[in-house]
C-alpha cells in the first residue's frame, strides 16, 4: 500500500479519535468525559480538514467544541454534589450493549468490505467556503429555513422548560 503523508495523518487522527472517545465514554465523572470529548471533537474537525472540508472544520470547532461543550460544562458545574457510588462501572451493564454493538459492527464491516466502492482511494480535494456557501444558499435554501425554524423551536422549548415555577 502506498503510504503517503496524508494517509499517515489519517491513521494517527483515527487512533487518537477512537482512544479519546473510548476514554470519554467510560469516565465516571461527567466533567472528565466532556473534557475528553472536546479532544475527540477537535480531532473530528482535523479529519474534516483532511477530507477537504475547511469550513466544516471551523464550524465543528466553533459550534461543537466551543458552544455545545461549554453548555455541557455549564450544566455540570451547576449540578449539586452527587452520590459517587451511583454510576459505577458495572461489567454486567456493559456486557449486553457491547455484544449487540459487536454484532452490528461485524455486519457493518462485512457490508463495507463487500462494497466495491469502498476499496477506491479517495483523491485529495477541497471545497472552498465560497463554493460551499453558494451551494448552501442556492440549492438548499429551503433546508436552511427549516433548520432555522428548528433552532427557534429549540430556543422556545429550552425557555419553556427552564421557566421558574411561580
Amino acid at each position, binding site marked *: 500500500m502506498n503510504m503517503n503523508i496524508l494517509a499517515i495523518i489519517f491513521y494517527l487522527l483515527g487512533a487518537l479519535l477512537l482512544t479519546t*472517545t473510548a476514554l470519554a465514554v467510560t469516565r465516571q465523572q461527567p466533567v472528565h468525559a466532556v473534557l475528553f470529548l472536546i479532544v475527540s471533537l477537535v480531532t473530528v474537525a482535523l479529519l474534516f480538514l483532511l477530507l477537504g472540508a475547511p469550513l466544516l472544520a471551523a464550524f465543528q470547532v466553533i459550534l461543537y467544541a466551543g458552544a455545545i461543550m461549554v*453548555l455541557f460544562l455549564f450544566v455540570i458545574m451547576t449540578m449539586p454534589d452527587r452520590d459517587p457510588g451511583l454510576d459505577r462501572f458495572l461489567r454486567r451493564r456493559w456486557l449486553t450493549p457491547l455484544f449487540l454493538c459487536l454484532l452490528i459492527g461485524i455486519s457493518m464491516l462485512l457490508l463495507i468490505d463487500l*462494497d466495491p466502492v469502498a476499496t477506491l482511494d479517495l483523491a485529495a480535494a477541497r471545497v472552498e467556503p465560497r463554493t460551499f456557501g453558494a451551494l448552501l444558499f442556492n440549492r438548499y435554501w429551503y433546508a436552511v429555513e427549516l433548520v432555522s425554524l428548528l433552532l427557534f423551536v429549540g430556543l422556545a422549548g429550552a425557555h419553556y422548560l427552564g421557566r421558574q415555577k411561580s
Partner: protein
Amino acid sequence: MIVPFGHVLILATLLFLLGACCVVARRELLMILIGVEIMLNGAALAFVAAALRWQLADGQIFALFIIAVAAAEVAVGLALIVAARQRTGAMHGDDFNRLRG
C-alpha cells in the same frame, strides 16, 4: 490519494458504535446525551467522506445540518435534564419511573 473510502467508513462505524454503547450502557442523563453527540459525529464523518468520494459538496452540507440539529437537540436535552432535576432531584434515567410531574 489519502486512504481507501472503506477505512473512513470503518472509522465512522466504530465512532458510531462507541456512542451507541454509551447511550445504552450509561445511566446518567448527561452521559446519554454525550453518547448521542458521538453518534452524530460518526454520521457527519461518513457524510464528509462520501462527499469526497463522489466529489460532490452536498455531503458536506448535510454534515452542516447534522451540526445544527445537534445544537438544537443539546439545547432542549440539557433544558430537560435541568428541569427534571429541579422537580425530582434525580439525575439518572432509572430514577424516572413515574409518569407524574
